[in-house]
C-alpha cells in the first residue's frame, strides 16, 4: 500500500488546488491521516473509492472529536544584545496565544477489494459555534449515514448533503451536544454515599447546610 505521503502527492496531482495535509501520528500504531479541505472532500472521497489502484470501498468508522479553544503558553529564549555593549543576554520570553477550537470528523477507510487500509481522512470545522458544517460523505459511502447522524447529535457538526440529518441517540427536543468537552450535565443529583471529585462537588451543592444528625449506619464507624 502507498504511504500517506505518496497518497497525498497523488491526490494533489489529481486535484490541483485542493489542500491535503498529512497529520502525523507519533504513537507506535503509526496510523497517519490526511486532512482535507471542504471544497474537494467529496471529490477526493469519490476518487479514493473508485480509483482502481486504491478502491477504498468501505468507510468503516466515522467519529467526531472536539478540540476546544486552548491557551498555549510558550516560553522562548531570546538573545538580547546588551545596550551597554557587554555580552548579549539570554532572556526567557513567555508568549500566550489562543489556539481557536474546532470540531473534527474522522473517517477510517478500508479497501475490501484490495485488502488494504486504513486510510484516515479528517475534516475540520471553522470553529465550534457557528461554522460547524462539513460536507457529508454519505453519498460516497452509505455506512456514514447513521454515524454522521451520531456525530451531529453528540458533537453538533452539521453535514451538508446528508439525506436525513436528525438526532439519532438523544431525543429530538434535546438542545445540547453532550460529547463536547464543555457540556454541562443537568443536575439530577442522586444520593451519593461515596462522593469523589466532581461528584463530591455536586454533592456539596446539594447539602449546603451543616448536616443534620448522621444516619445511624454511618455514625457507627
Amino acid at each position, binding site marked *: 500500500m502507498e504511504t500517506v505521503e505518496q497518497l497525498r502527492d497523488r491526490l494533489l496531482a489529481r486535484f490541483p488546488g485542493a489542500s491535503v495535509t498529512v497529520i502525523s*501520528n507519533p*504513537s*507506535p*500504531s503509526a496510523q497517519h491521516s490526511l486532512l482535507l479541505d471542504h471544497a474537494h472532500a467529496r471529490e477526493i472521497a469519490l476518487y479514493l473509492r473508485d480509483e482502481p489502484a486504491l478502491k477504498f470501498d468501505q468507510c468503516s*468508522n466515522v467519529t467526531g472529536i472536539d478540540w476546544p479553544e486552548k491557551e498555549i503558553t510558550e516560553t522562548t529564549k531570546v538573545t538580547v544584545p546588551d545596550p551597554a555593549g557587554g555580552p548579549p543576554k539570554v532572556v526567557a520570553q513567555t508568549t500566550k496565544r489562543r489556539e481557536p477550537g474546532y470540531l473534527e470528523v*474522522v473517517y477510517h477507510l478500508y479497501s475490501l477489494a484490495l485488502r488494504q487500509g486504513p486510510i484516515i481522512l479528517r475534516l475540520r470545522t471553522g470553529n465550534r459555534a457557528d461554522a460547524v458544517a462539513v460536507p457529508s460523505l454519505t453519498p460516497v459511502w*452509505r*455506512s456514514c449515514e447513521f454515524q454522521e447522524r451520531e456525530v451531529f447529535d453528540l458533537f453538533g457538526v452539521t453535514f451538508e448533503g446528508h439525506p436525513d440529518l*436528525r438526532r*439519532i441517540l438523544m431525543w429530538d427536543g434535546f438542545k445540547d451536544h453532550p460529547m463536547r468537552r464543555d457540556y454541562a450535565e443537568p443536575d439530577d443529583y442522586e444520593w451519593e454515599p461515596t462522593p469523589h471529585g466532581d461528584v463530591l462537588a455536586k454533592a456539596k451543592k446539594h447539602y449546603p447546610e451543616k448536616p443534620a444528625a448522621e444516619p445511624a449506619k454511618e455514625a457507627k464507624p
Partner: protein
Amino acid sequence: MSLTPEIGGAHVRAVHDEFHGDLLEVSMGPHHPSTHGVFRMIVTLDGETIVKLKPVFGYLHRNHEKLGENTTYLASMPYTDRLDYLNSMSNNWAYALAVEKLAGLAVPERAEYVRVILAELTRLLNHTCLAGFLMQDCGCSGTPLMYAFREREKILDLFESLSGSRMMCNYQRFGGCRVDPPAEWLAGAQRLVDGYSAFLDEFEALLTGNEILMARTQGVGRLDPALAVSAGVAGPMLRATGVGHDLRKVDGYGVYPRFEFRVPVGAHGDTYDRYMIRILEMRESIRILQQALAGLPGGPVMDPKAKLRGFRPKAGEAYGRIEGPKGEIGFYLISDGGPNPYRYRVRPPSFINLTILEDMCLGHTVADAVIILGSVDIVLGEVDR
C-alpha cells in the same frame, strides 16, 4: 414531517397518500418482544407491505464513550464487557488490542493463544444464542432457545471458573490476560469443544432442514453485496452476501495466521444464508479451538513490563479492530499523554449493520421484518452504547 413522533410506545397512525391510498405508520418498540431489547422501528405499511422503515435508536444510550473519556484506560475495560453483553471476551480483546497498538505493547505468545480460545468460545456462544433467538422470532417458541441456552450455560461455566463472572468477564489486560488458565480449565474447555460438534449436529437436525424455517427465511431480506460493502456491513452478514472478508484472515491479528480454517461465504445474502453462515462458522470455530488447545504454548500470560496502574500511553492515536462475532468491532483511541483517553470511540458492528435494515425490509411484511432484524444479530448495548 418528523418521523419520530413525540411519544413512544405502541403508536399507530394513518398517513394519507394519494398514490397508495391509506398508508399506515406503525411504531414497533421500544418495548416489543421481537426487537432484542429496546430497539424501535417506525414502519410505514401499504396493506401489510413495508414501504418505509426508519429505525429509532438511543433507548439504551448509556454514554459509554463519555464515561470512557472520564476514566482511566484500565477502568474502561469492565465497561467494554457491557457493550455487547453476550461477547464480553471479544470486546475485551478488541479494546486491549487498540490500547496495545497505541502504547506499543507486546503480548506473550501464550496470552495470544488464550485470547484466541476465549474469542472462539465467545463466537460459539454468540452464534448459538443468535440461532435460538432467531428461531424465537420465527415463532418457534422456546425449544431452540432452550437448547441454545443449555449450551450457553456450559460455556459460561467455563468463563466463570476462569474470570470469576458469567457474563462480565473483564479478563483481558493491556499486554496479556489477567489469569493463567490452569490445566483443569483447559481440560474442561477441551471436553466442551469435543462435545460441541455433536450438539451442533443435533441443533442442525432440529432446524436446518426444517421446511417451515426454509419457507420463512429463504429469499427474505436479500442484501446486495455492493450495498453491503458500501454500508460498512461486516461479519457474518457481509459474508452471507458472498464477500469473503474476515479480519482473522485479512488483518491476521493475534496468532490467527497459524491456524487452518475456512471462511464460509453465502450465495444469496438472504436470512437463511445468514443463519447458515453462523452454523458453518461455529464448525470452523471448533476447528480453530482444537488447534489452539493442542498448540497452546507455555510461558507467562502477561507482559512483565505492562503496568496495571499509572498507565499513560504517549500522545497519539490508534484504531484497533478484531473480527467479533457480530462483525468488525473496533476501538479508536486518542491519547494526549494523560491517564484518561482524550477520545474513546467504539466502532459498534451491530449499529453499522443496521444501516441497511430498511433496504432489506422494503417490500416484505412486518412478520418478515422481525426475522430480518433477528438475523442481523443486534445487541442494544452496542447499538446505542
